[in-house]
């Protein structure tokens, strides 16, 4: 058994960095603090690579399965003797894989930001927040129990809130951050309720106990039925609700596009590579329960994923803000991963989907980060987000151009780039379990290729726009990460995931299924072709199309009016018809009653003043009547 106890430093280091930069940041030189943050992250990147190596290649397996290793653990808060929140580090294939993903991308983004954020006000604040985010994200993936996960879940939420609202003087940014936080918070409510129900039935938070296929948690499965579904199913659906929120699945996706208000590196790190896949990771983490004890919930996962991917892809085809296009494509790719999990089974070749999903998560992190960073470089050069104001940039930004192209090809699933392999696995898994979903995903693959190359062509080719000032290639701090990530997205496809990350930790054989791979490549190429025709040069086709499908285009362009719907619910229903009435009720009914008591008392005291008339004889009357009344009362009425 190898000693992994040092892994506790992987999350801890960024936290210390956050404290340092947060408390003393404004005293340091911006550059220094930037370097500190980056250096710290570089360190843990190395650490996590070492960990990954030692875990996958040197730690021994028990009957051919990777073990779940509790590297370190201590009780943070004791609820009951059974229920307690622990803080610790759990190493298993997916967490180790996530370690690699997060640290790599985060490190790249740190380096990139050194250039991108140069001269920004609050440079050190930015890096402090980045460290906070890295801390929370790492804590999330390394969580040993569901409550620890929830804690860091909230923390990534808030750090994303802080980073989206980084330009806090910009109203749109403020609005976006607020929206992101509240929407995800609402989803997290579901997560929490899920945890509560789960813990009530299983009396434990611990992942290993929960997800043990032979364990009591899965075996008893909370047989009590409610609306025909087992308690376990309910709790899993609620837990998944949290995932939906974080991973911007339909219907909680609305925060993601607005989140693009944040600085581009942030979008690359949080809203493309790491945080948004937390939902996928959550489902993967609880996968045995989903697969063995709550299949209905698993179906929900599959359908939500499939629908979101299609939905997002359609919208992506119509957007003109490049970051928003990328945001929607992220959403659709995550939909892929969800679907893959949804269609997967547990163990052996059944678990193909699981593996595929993790695989795609990995590759997607690489190329989507690359895409965003590239977009960042473009924006940095052009000072605009809108592709309508771009074109012919290839001669100004050669490196960006090449890397961007690679990324586009990857996402379009062109062999031998990594995207091809992972997506192919997913399609295969879908094909084997559910033909309809397969068809959907197949179409989405085409759409993806189309909108990505629409973007690519209209930015780098297309009409030759005349820029007010000459766009120039980004500095090395920005281009180097691009290159590294580009390499990453080329080679990662060859990592044998089926030997490393599988549903039950055991190796299984999976070979390329040509009769799925070839058509998927073809449709990818088809998408690219259409995009080429429409956007390679300036042409009237897009506008014609838009004109012909006026209404559907309009709907897609306005993201199917989801934002308006939410606005209606929050502003009109909640605020106008609940909060304000409550406030009014409190003032004018509850409070008024209390005041009424006082007023009535005073009123009465005014009414009865007539007794004190100052007339001696009236007093005498009262006196005598009083005496007689009392006598009557106690002699006759109340003996």
């Amino acid at each position, binding site marked *: 058994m190898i000693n992994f106890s040092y892994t506790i430093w992987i999350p801890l280091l960024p936290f210390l960095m956050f404290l340092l930069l947060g408390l003393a940041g404004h005293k340091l030189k911006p550059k220094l603090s930037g370097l500190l943050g980056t250096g710290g992250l570089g360190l843990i990147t190395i650490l996590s690579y070492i960990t990954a190596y030692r875990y996958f290649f040197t730690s021994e397996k028990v009957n051919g399965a990777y073990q779940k290793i509790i590297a370190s653990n201590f*009780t*943070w*808060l*004791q*609820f*009951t003797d059974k*229920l307690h*929140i622990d803080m610790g580090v759990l190493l298993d294939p997916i967490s180790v894989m996530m370690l690699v993903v997060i640290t790599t991308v985060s490190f790249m983004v740190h380096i990139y930001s050194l250039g991108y954020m140069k001269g920004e006000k609050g440079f050190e604040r930015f890096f402090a927040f980045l460290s906070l985010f890295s801390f929370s994200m790492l804590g999330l993936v390394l969580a040993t129990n569901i*409550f620890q996960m929830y*804690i*860091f879940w*909230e*923390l990534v939420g*808030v750090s994303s809130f802080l980073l989206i*609202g980084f330009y*806090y*003087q*910009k*109203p749109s940014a*403020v*609005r976006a951050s*607020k929206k992101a*936080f*509240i929407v995800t*918070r*609402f989803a997290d*409510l579901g997560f*929490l*309720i899920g945890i*509560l*129900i789960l*813990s*009530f039935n299983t009396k434990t938070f611990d992942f290993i106990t929960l997800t043990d296929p032979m364990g009591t948690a899965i075996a008893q499965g909370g047989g009590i039925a409610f609306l025909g579904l087992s308690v376990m199913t309910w709790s899993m659906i609620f837990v998944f609700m949290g995932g939906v929120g974080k991973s911007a699945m339909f219907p909680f996706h609305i925060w993601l596009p607005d989140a693009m208000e944040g600085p581009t590196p942030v979008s690359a790190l949080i809203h493309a590579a790491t945080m948004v896949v937390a939902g996928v990771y959550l489902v993967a983490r609880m996968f045995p329960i989903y697969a063995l004890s709550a299949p209905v919930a698993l179906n929900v996962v599959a359908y939500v994923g499939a629908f979101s991917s299609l939905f997002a892809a359609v919208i992506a085809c119509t957007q003109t803000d490049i970051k928003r296009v990328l945001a929607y494509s992220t959403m659709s790719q995550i939909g892929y991963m969800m679907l893959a999990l949804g269609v997967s089974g547990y163990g052996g070749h059944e678990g193909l989907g699981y593996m595929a999903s993790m695989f795609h998560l990995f590759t997607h992190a690489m190329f989507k980060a690359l895409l965003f960073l590239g977009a960042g470089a473009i924006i940095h050069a052009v000072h605009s987000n809108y592709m309508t104001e771009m074109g012919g940039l290839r001669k100004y930004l050669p490196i960006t151009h090449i890397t961007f192209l690679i990324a586009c090809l990857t996402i379009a699933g062109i062999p031998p780039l990594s995207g091809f392999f992972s997506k192919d696995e997913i399609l295969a898994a879908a094909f084997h379990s559910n033909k309809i979903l397969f068809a959907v995903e197949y179409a989405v693959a085409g759409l993806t290729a189309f909108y990505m190359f629409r973007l690519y062509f209209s930015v780098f080719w297309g009409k030759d726009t005349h820029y007010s000032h000459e766009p120039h290639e980004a500095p090395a701090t920005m281009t180097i990460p691009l290159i590294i990530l580009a390499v990453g997205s080329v080679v990662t496809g060859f990592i044998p995931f089926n030997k490393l990350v599988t549903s039950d930790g055991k190796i299984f054989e999976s070979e390329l299924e040509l009769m799925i791979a070839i058509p998927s490549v073809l449709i990818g190429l088809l998408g690219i072709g259409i995009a080429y025709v429409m956007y390679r040069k300036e042409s009237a086709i897009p506008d014609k199309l838009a004109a012909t499908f006026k209404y559907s285009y309009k709907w897609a362009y306005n993201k199917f009016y989801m934002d308006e719907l939410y606005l209606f619910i929050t502003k009109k229903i*909640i*605020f106008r018809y*609940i*909060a*304000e009435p*409550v*406030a009014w009720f*409190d003032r004018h009914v*509850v*409070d008024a*009653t*209390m*005041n009424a008591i*006082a007023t009535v008392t005073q009123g009465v005291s005014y009414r009865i003043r007539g007794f004190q008339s100052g007339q001696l004889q009236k007093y005498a009357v009262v006196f005598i009547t009083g005496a007689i009344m009392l006598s009557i009362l106690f002699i006759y009425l109340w003996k």
Partner: protein
Amino acid sequence: MDILSLFVVIPVLTITAILLLKDTRQVRLVSAFGMGLQLLMAAVLVYLYLSARHAGNIDEMLFVKDYLWFKSLNIHYAVGVDGISVAMISLTSLVVFAGIFASWEVEILKKEFFISLILLATGVFGFFISIDLFTMFLFYELAVIPMYLLIGIWGSGPKEYSAMKLTLMLMGGSALLLVGLLGIYFNSSPDKNQLTFNILEISKVVIPLPAQRMFFPLTFMGFGVLGALFPFHTWSPDGHASAPTAVSMLHAGVLMKLGGYGAFRVAIFLMPEAAHELSWIFIILTSISVIYGAFGAIAQKDLKYINAYSSVSHCGLVLFAVLMMNQTAMTGAIIQMISHGLMTALFFGLIGMIYGRTHTRMISEMGGLMKVIPFLSVCYVIAGLASLGLPGLSGFVAEMTIFVGAFQHPELFYRIVTIIVVSSIVITAVYILRVIAILLLGPTTNEHFEHLPDAKWFEKISVITLIGSVAAIGLAPFWLSTMIGTSMHPIIERILALNPF
């Protein structure tokens, strides 16, 4: 002189010292010194307590001192603490300490102000240390009455109205309470020969159920008024809005906790059966105040009103948890009291400081303060995050303990209500973020605000004390929850022995 009585003696000495002073500048120094001493004492007490427990002392109450006072009625001056009261005492001393610094620049009648403030503190400390119902009640009323002068003289807005309303409603609560206490007293011994006010001795006997049915509601509501139980919470918004900074801090931070503490230590601990029987009524009321308070806060425009309503919601959570009557939930209730105490004190302190600069509390009239007064704004954000239950700050610990505990309740009804109550975390997030977004973020709307000064040193002391403790509890809750939890055991055992669920 035993250590506990010192907690009453030191403030009294401070008051006398202030009375003797002439120069007003010294007044605040003296009070700061006295309360600093108090804070130190609290630390010492915590240390002594923990070491005593560590030494294996398993008495229900420690440092018990008992002096016979009124022999014929068997009234004692009896003090003693368990983990819960120790925690509450440290909370109080923290908040009072911060409060002194927050009110460093009172203009008029400095002397009187600090005297009344410390008098209020005296009452609170006395309440928490006493284990004799009579002394408890005495200190309770002693704590309530200075509020009138504090709000009436140094307050703002419709201060006289609010002060009167607050005092009368709280006194109304204590009226119900008095009857309840007398009822407990006269049932405190099966054979009427040796009646007692001593909580520990009463807890050894079982009060007959009819009596419990009669006196539990009185006692609970009596304390509930102070704990802002719906519908008796309406003193809270007006009172807080009109009160000067330090007073709102103390009042929301500490005084409202008397309600929760008493409801748990007297009403439920002494009359568990009735509590179990009638809990459903109060559960409904409290969950109303949780949700209702939160929604009320969304629609407010005045910072203090927002905070007052959020206090209603949070204190409602305390009473809610207490009524769940199991180890975890009740522990959570205590933690929530402490966390909310610190949090809301922080909030009111900051609001006072901001108001002192912008001279308005209407959020609509402010904006973009983050750029102008970063320190205060950041602290405000932290307070906000704490109050919406962000992990790493105290609010989260408290709320989660309550929710998990409450959800362990064996009856379905309680679990469903719990889920409803849990949903308050979203509403809280909504109004907190709304305030933060309007008040601090965005462009600076009013050019008059461009050159506001940031926090002064005494304000920083006050704020940092509170933030420090909020974060301390949030990051390392285990010692607090264990300290409270161990003291909760005997209480829970008694409750469970009397109501087998």
